[in-house]
């Protein structure tokens, strides 16, 4: 048989198989639904579904959710198929998105109790109008726009899934009012799913009752952003018909979207927006004026003044309701999502774990969007969805929950599967901070705390972007602490936390912490960020006044992450006040003082501290026993080398004991240095061991030339020591080696003159 003939026969067999497949008979291969359904002659129709006992637009009738159904024609022949639903507040069109002016002063309590607790009484939201305030509206007034098809429709509809587009309360042709994540929106979704399962009422555009005879009722919800939030909202009701959800970049708690530890934060790129302006953005229903009261209630309840958590935000924390879930969950989220930030997937994931909900998670390196459904992994993502939905909507036992639970993108083409997330072995690892006493950069590592509580101050300047502040070699507007150079990758996976002991010169300020990768070429990359209001240091739901000058421990988490710091980089922590893109922008000038030694960063290092140590160049041990002798031609320093990993020693000198400058960089194993030139005035010296990769050791003991009595200052008592030993030789009774400044073995006029030169002209000592 010729090749042409074989091809002909094969094609014929395939055509026959498809032709002979009975209508509605789903086919599965390796647990995946196959594209056996015709997409021609789709049945498309609209239904308005009643939300029982809910009248948010106060028109005297229950709110109705408009859905648009697209289903294979075969469903008109008795075949019932499961549903893929996307619910959106956006499909009716987006209106202008107002923004708040985010400049101006920060909130400071006007009156507090003895403990500093803010006594402010929150304003009362406007009342809900009586039912029937507005004329009845059913949402069916023509024209009825056709809603665009889901990005997944062309792939999954042939595989036997009905596609439903639902419009959120108060949007498009639905009635009611948006509540920005309120329980009303959850109940609206529940009502739709219940209707799929024969519960509740639905009408067509002509007001005729209709039923969902074409579906099995098994429903999944998928969507991105707000569309990815409504699946979580629906699942939180425990609605039985919802078998699976795929929240993509979904909100798990609206507080995390708009606030962070009491800080009013921006949802990039929509800087200055808030829950109420989002309401304005999505209120696309007809006769929107009926929802004005709801907008006013949101404005009051969201409390942009204090940023505190309250009952309104609590209602919008879906993680509290995960125990109700009947739906399995497949999360997809961008690790660099600056809008719906990674904290959302983290908290939802932790709640799913706690409630043993069947789950998987895909984390991509992108920002806000459905990033898994594009690029190199798109086919795998669709297979994942297919397997997921085939199991939970068709009941195919394809062991979806078996195998790795987590897939994490590493590059545009590389994804890595893990048994769970955070990646097993990720261990909270505390990095202690080493102050530098300047606005350059200090160090951090997993070794012991630095002994000196050197306080470091910085000044807020909200006009400067954080990307500039983390990159600057010197800046008075932030503090930076860097790890040793990494010689091997360091993987972090999970939640990142900081504890910062800060004092504030003013009674209000924002605290921002930023995890940074410092690259070998001198550039920097922000990995993730976190923000906290020191007024919420005890509770996110209560404001306490900040007393200037009093140090407080401010503990908070940054956005969680899964990231591998490559070899050749350093891990950095930047501490600043305003984070221009994400926080309010008060006038510049607020001063904050950090006790770095009492502060720390906690990273979820895979393998823990040992993995970090193994992957990083060690910090050399600090030199000790620094001693100085002074002669007419200079100062001679000696010290003990305690390091075995140093590349160099750095000799530092200071005239005030606070600000040191590097005087010389010496070769490894050096233990002496001569600082040439006549010596006069106050001179402090200290020495560090340094390693190009590991950074600088802590400083040695500090020597003040001429401070013979160790008082820390040059004074007549030091001269008295010279006088008491004057003329004495080493070994002779009365010889005091401290007085022999030049180490000549005798205390003579050279020592005396060296000492008097160190003291200021005009000094009177007797």
């Amino acid at each position, binding site marked *: 048989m010729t090749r042409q003939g074989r091809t002909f026969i094969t094609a014929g067999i395939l055509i026959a198989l498809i032709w002979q497949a009975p209508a509605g008979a789903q086919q599965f291969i390796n647990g995946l639904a196959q594209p056996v359904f015709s997409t021609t002659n789709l049945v498309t129709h609209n239904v308005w579904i009643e939300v029982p006992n809910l009248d948010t637009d106060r028109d005297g009738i229950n709110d109705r959710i408009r859905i648009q159904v697209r289903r294979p024609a075969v469903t008109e022949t008795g075949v019932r198929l499961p549903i893929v639903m996307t619910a959106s507040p956006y499909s009716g069109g987006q209106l202008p998105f107002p923004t708040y002016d985010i400049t101006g002063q920060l909130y400071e309590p006007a009156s507090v109790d003895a403990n500093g607790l803010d006594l402010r009484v929150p304003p009362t939201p406007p009342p809900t109008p009586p039912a029937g305030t507005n004329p009845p509206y059913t949402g069916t007034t023509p024209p009825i726009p056709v809603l665009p098809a889901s990005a997944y429709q062309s792939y999954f509809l042939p595989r036997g899934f009905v596609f439903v587009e639902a419009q959120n309360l108060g949007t498009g042709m639905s009635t009611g009012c948006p509540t920005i994540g309120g329980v009303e929106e959850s109940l609206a979704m529940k009502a739709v799913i219940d209707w799929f399962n024969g519960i509740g009422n639905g009408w067509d555009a002509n007001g005729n009752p209709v039923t969902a005879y074409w579906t099995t009722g098994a429903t999944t919800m998928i969507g991105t952003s707000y569309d990815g939030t409504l699946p979580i909202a629906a699942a939180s009701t425990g609605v039985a018909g919802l078998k699976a959800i795929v929240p993509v970049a979904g909100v798990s708690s609206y507080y995390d979207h708009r606030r962070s530890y009491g800080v009013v934060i921006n949802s990039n790129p929509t800087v200055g927006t808030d829950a109420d302006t989002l309401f304005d953005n999505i209120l696309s229903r007809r006769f929107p004026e009926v929802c004005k009261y709801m907008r006013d209630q949101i404005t009051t309840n969201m409390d942009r003044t204090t940023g505190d958590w309250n009952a309104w935000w609590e209602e919008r924390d879906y993680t509290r309701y995960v125990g109700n879930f009947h739906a399995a969950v497949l999360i997809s989220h961008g690790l660099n999502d600056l809008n719906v930030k990674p904290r959302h997937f983290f908290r939802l994931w932790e709640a799913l774990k706690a409630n043993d909900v069947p789950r998987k998670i895909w984390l991509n390196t992108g920002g806000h969007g459905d990033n898994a459904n594009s690029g190199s992994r798109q086919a795998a993502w669709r297979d994942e969805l297919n397997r997921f939905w085939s199991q939970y909507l068709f009941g195919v036992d394809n062991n979806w929950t078996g195998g790795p639970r987590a897939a994490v993108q590493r590059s545009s083409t590389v994804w890595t599967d893990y048994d769970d997330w955070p990646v097993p072995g990720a261990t909270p690892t505390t990095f202690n901070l080493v102050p530098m006493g300047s606005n350059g950069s200090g160090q951090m590592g997993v070794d012991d705390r630095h002994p000196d509580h050197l306080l470091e101050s910085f000044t807020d300047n909200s006009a400067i972007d954080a990307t500039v502040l983390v990159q600057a070699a010197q800046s008075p507007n932030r503090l930076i602490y860097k790890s040793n150079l990494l010689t091997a990758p360091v993987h972090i996976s999970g939640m990142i936390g900081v504890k910062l002991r800060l004092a504030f010169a003013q009674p209000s300020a924002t605290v921002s912490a930023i995890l940074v990768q410092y690259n070998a070429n001198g550039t920097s990359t922000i990995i993730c960020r976190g923000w906290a209001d020191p007024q919420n240091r005890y509770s996110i739901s209560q404001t306490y006044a900040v007393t200037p000058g009093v140090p407080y421990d401010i503990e908070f988490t940054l956005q969680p992450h899964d990231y591998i710091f490559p070899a050749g980089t350093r891990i950095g922590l930047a501490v600043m006040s305003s984070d221009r893109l994400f926080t309010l922008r008060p006038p510049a000038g607020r001063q904050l003082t950090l006790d770095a030694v009492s502060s720390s960063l906690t990273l979820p290092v895979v393998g823990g501290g040992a993995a970090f140590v193994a992957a990083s160049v060690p910090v050399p041990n600090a030199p000790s026993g620094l001693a100085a002798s002074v002669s007419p031609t200079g100062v001679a320093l000696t010290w003990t080398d305690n390091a075995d990993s140093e590349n160099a020693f750095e000799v530092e000198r200071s005239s005030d004991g606070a600000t040191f400058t590097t005087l010389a960089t010496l070769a490894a194993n050096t233990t002496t240095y001569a600082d040439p030139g006549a010596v006069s005035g106050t001179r402090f010296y200290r020495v560090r061991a340094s390693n190009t990769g590991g950074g600088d050791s802590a400083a040695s003991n500090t020597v003040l030339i001429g401070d013979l009595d160790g008082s820390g200052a040059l004074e007549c008592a030091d001269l008295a020591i010279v*006088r008491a030993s004057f*003329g004495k030789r080493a070994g002779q009774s009365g010889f005091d080696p401290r007085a022999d400044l030049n180490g000549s073995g005798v205390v*003579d006029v*050279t020592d*005396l003159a060296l000492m*008097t030169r160190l003291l*200021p*002209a*005009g*000094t009177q000592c007797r």
Partner: protein
Amino acid sequence: MKLHSYRFLLAALVATCVAASPSTASATPVVSLQPVSSTIAAGDPLTIAVQITGAVDLFAFQFDVLFDPLALSATGPSTEGPFLATGGSTFFIPGVEDNTTGAILGTANSLFGLSGVSGNGTLALLNFVGVPNASRSRTTALTLANLLLLDSNLAPIAATELGANVTVNTVPEPATLLLLGSGLTFAWRRRGRGSRAL
């Protein structure tokens, strides 16, 4: 001419030469003890000045003075001369008297600050007393030792050192004077009697 007379002339000559010379950086300063020669009675006090001539940028100095403890006794403390203090405040160490070996050890002074002084003047004043119980007149040399001058860079300054002589005469007791008078009278009488016999 007696030995102490030669020394006096030499010191005067050197002092005259130094005084006549301008104070230049190349000149060698002279540190001397003044007066170069003196005679005191046992038990009398004596102050010796340590003088410098031709000093250039003098910042600090140190010296010892040696003497015969059978002739002199240092009564200390030494006091600071006015010369160095013309450059500002100073820190003066008077030294330690050792009347067993005959020395004042470790007299020193230093300016504060960064600049020295130039010219002539007194560095220090040393206080002595003639040893009262000396059995006979005694002359002692006073010499400088361990002299060290430093300029404002704390570099040593070479200098010529000149010492001094002090003679301490004994003072007769009253009984001694009586015996002496009796002796003289007896001798005069013996002389007169002898002349008559011739």
